[in-house]
């Protein structure tokens, strides 16, 4: 899980253009300034590429925060 968190944090830092951004499990789109529907999809695409996984729309709809996403990544690895 440690490794997933670090990699995801780096993706967030790159996509949301903030080199000091830290992620928490409870974090949602409301907590990050540049997290809108467009950057959301870019972030998802990047996450898929980095981990070599694929999300389904159904799974995406159900994710309520960063914690849900981290769990889903771990499940798929």
């Amino acid at each position, binding site marked *: 899980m440690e490794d997933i968190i670090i990699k995801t944090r780096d993706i967030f830092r790159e996509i949301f253009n903030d080199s000091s951004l830290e992620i928490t499990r409870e974090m949602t789109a409301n907590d990050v300034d540049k997290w809108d*529907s*467009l950057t959301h*999809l*870019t972030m*998802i*695409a990047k996450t898929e590429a980095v981990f070599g996984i694929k999300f389904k*729309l*159904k799974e*995406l*709809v*159900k994710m309520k925060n960063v914690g849900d996403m981290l769990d889903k990544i771990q499940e798929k690895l």
Partner: protein
Amino acid sequence: MGSFNLQVFLQSLTYNPANPLMYQSVTFFLLFAVFYIFYSIFFNSRPIRNALLLVFSLYFYYKLSGLFVFVLIAMGTSDYFIGMGIFKSRKAHIKNLLLTLSVLINVGALMYFKYTNFLLESWTGIVHPGAEPLVLKIIQPIGISYFVFKTLTYIFDIQREVIEKPEKSWFRYILYVSFFPNILAGPISKARDLLPQFITKPEISKEALSKGLFLIMLGLIKKIAVADYIASNFVDRIFESPEFFTGFDAYMASYGAMIQLFFDFAGYTDMMVGFAFLMGFTIEHNFNKPFLAGNISEFWRRWHITLYNWLNEYLYQPMAFAWRRWKLAGAMLAVFLTFLISGLWHGAAITFVVWGLLHGLAIAWDVFSSSGRKKVQKWMPKVIYKVLSILITFHFLVFTAVLLKAKTFSDAIDFWKKMFTEIDLSLFSKWFGIYTTPFLVMVIALILQFLPNKMYTSIFNFFKKWHWTLKALAFAILVIVLYQLYILEAMPFIYIQF
């Protein structure tokens, strides 16, 4: 005084295509009052309460659209079974197959009733230009665009497992599809929000009753004193025969058209949300001060909110998700297609398609210009920037609203030409002399739009404290006064036709 004629009375209870039941009519209020007495008596029994709601909703739809009530029931029934099927089947491909079947049935019916003639005309226009197109006599069931979207939320949400268990009761599902406060022109309530409310006991608090009555009164004012008044006394006259009017008339009528559209639809929605409150239900409202939007993306979060949410959740998101690797290009294509479909949904005509595309373009512009606009925002005083964005957005809406009022695309082009080439500002005082009241109504209505919510809350809080007899009296007086304005025939809500 004439004696009571049973036959005439009974006949008045059946469907009359020349005179469908209007929401803002006295007949409707009387029917609702009779229903409400029974509803209150049997409120504590869930089966009777729901049965009364269902009977009243279906009867209301019958009074609006006649035997099409069976189309409504048939389409609801098919999704009731398909939803069950999607839930029960274990294999993904069967789930997908059933979902496709539901979409085919719903969109197929919509296409048949709404778009057959449009497609025939377009086809003739392309293949045999100049030929008289074949026009079939197809009448569309009222509200079909709305109940199709409503029932589809159930199917999509079951497929996505957002709704975890399908509705067991067929009656409740049909009640969800036909629920009268949504049936005519939305709001498009989602199954996941509305269906559970038929299972738990609705709560009718004093607050909800006051809110309901207040919203119905507000809606009546918006519909009758603003929308219908400026339509019949100014806007419609000019759009019907622009050739008799000056460019200045046309220019002012385009403002009027946008104001009319908003107050018509917002008045209807206020009333429907109000009726739902009276019965103990909460349905989402469609508007949040749309003319305060600073750009078109924001406008669509404030205008026809339930439609926008639907399109966003079930159309834009799946497309944008599927094309996520194309980055911005994928998202832009999704935006564009969503607004093209939104335009077509609003009406089967080139005018609506162009209107949808212009809105899609405006949103694309919002995305591409966002960093540039941020730079402008930095050096421009905040207030000026805000006022300018609101003014520009409002004028985009006003100029594109011409497409929603004009009968054909070439009429819209002529109207625009007139608006922008024949303007003679010196005519203002003469114009003002003729249209003093409609103009003042337009200006006051707009100003009321811009006032803070706090003001409305304090008026409501004042109203809430009144004794019920006083509230009922206020309602009666309002109805009497408003109906004095109705010298002309009651006009249907504009959004019914979509």
